């Protein structure tokens, strides 16, 4: 998973990339040109902002926003939300949110694919191996990359993710 974020953090103008759960827990992060480590406060503040946005748009009968950005004098905060997590990117003042739109969409799609792949692969593989240990609650970066790489799109493509 960290490998996915690192590809995004290498884009020019990207200062920090963070993947958080919807309740504000940092899952993984990658540093771009920023040298400060502030993932926990960033995670808390962005999830608070996203929750506030959800509450504010609810009276209009709108679904929660899928993408949001906050552009300030000294940088931009871009959020892209999916069903399981939220991707947060901090941009420097010279970069625009549109510069990372496609990259963020693709990274989040890859993360979602990896997550679905893991949820499909994990029960089958554990049954065949006879393993007794449950999968870890929070996946490590190494696991994420392996799960993504081990995806085989054709056999799983038609299956429903609900097992």
């Amino acid at each position, binding site marked *: 998973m960290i490998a996915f974020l690192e590809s995004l953090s290498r884009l020019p103008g990207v200062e920090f990339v963070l993947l958080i759960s919807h309740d504000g827990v940092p899952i993984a992060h990658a540093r771009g040109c920023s040298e400060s480590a502030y993932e926990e406060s*960033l995670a808390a*503040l*962005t999830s*608070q*902002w996203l929750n*506030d*946005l959800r509450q*504010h*748009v609810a*009276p*209009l009968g*709108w*679904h*929660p*926003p*899928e*993408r*949001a*950005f*906050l*552009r*300030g*004098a*000294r*940088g*931009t*905060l871009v959020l892209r939300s999916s069903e399981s997590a939220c991707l947060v990117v901090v941009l420097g003042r010279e970069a625009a*949110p549109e510069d990372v739109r496609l990259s963020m969409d693709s990274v989040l799609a890859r993360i979602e694919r990896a997550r679905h792949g893991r949820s499909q692969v994990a029960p089958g593989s554990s049954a065949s191996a006879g393993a007794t240990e449950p999968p870890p609650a929070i996946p490590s970066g190494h696991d994420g990359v392996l799960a993504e790489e081990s995806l085989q799109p054709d056999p799983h493509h038609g299956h429903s993710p609900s097992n």
Partner: protein
Amino acid sequence: MKLLDRILSYGRIRRARRALAADPSPRNYLALAQQYALADRRADAQRICVEGLGAFPENIQLARYHQRTRRSEREARLAELHRELAFSPRAPLWRELCEILIESDELTRAEEELNRWLATGDHPEAHYLLGRVLLARFYADRGRTQGRAALAALDQAIARLPNDLRPLRAKLDFLTKIGAWQDARDCAARCLSVEPGTLELEGRYRTLAARAEGAPSIERALFEVERSGRLAGEEGGEGVRTSAGSVQALLREFATQPDVQAALYVRGSTALVQGPKGATAERTARTVQSILATSRSTGRRLGLGQVFQIQLEGSFGTLSIAPGEQDAGALLCSGPLGRAREETLLGMAGLNAATAGSETAVHPGADQ
């Protein structure tokens, strides 16, 4: 190649000048300024922008281009200063470099340069400029941490420049702006000890002395500023107002576009809404105001500085908000916002228009 460019640009400039003489419109002013800028004649480009702005003062594109040409001139001077500093570093060059960066609100770059300057020795002027940088950051973000850092830097500058009124005045302004009247009074007394008999300082001292009783401490005042996002005395700040008509014309222009669902202008607890009617208009305005308040606070906490744009995208479409100092323009459309609309919306922020007494005004509640 450069000579060829110059020859080619000469013809283009001549054509643009003729077009401007035949039809002095903002577009032709802009075209001529662009040709001058392309030919590396920044001073001429600026002159044309100033002339165009004199004739069309509300033209956003001309104003933006003027800003861009000024910025490009500034960057050229900065590059020159860097070259000079590499060969013969000296205090006046460092000072000019840092002052240009501070004035152009390039605070991070200014701080980096000041740290580089301070690395070469303990220069009192550098400490004072660092105090100004941190002060500017506090005025933009209004966070407690930035306020504390600014105060510490100013104290250091005062310790190194005890007979210089500039750091003392900066501290006095800071303490007055956060509403720490008692400390401000003490600072005014210190200013008077450096420059006794200054009538303006004596007047300030008397005003501050009258307010000092029961005044909050610095820490408490900083907390209040962070919480409310307002400096002392900003509550009633009205400033120059544009007529509501110009904003309504912009809103109406937005609302005529097929994919626009709502166009809003909010200021304080009042909003002008084009598109939705009745309760829906009120709910939409209320939502925009809530998003605005939340986002400004988040921007401050994240250290992003003054917020220029907030955009939400989802199944409802795109809601884009362009906040100004005291007002904001907002546009809800079913598709993407688009560059032209984004620029117009950003120009709407800061118009500071009068909203009271307007036909389409919606009052979403004083609690917002």
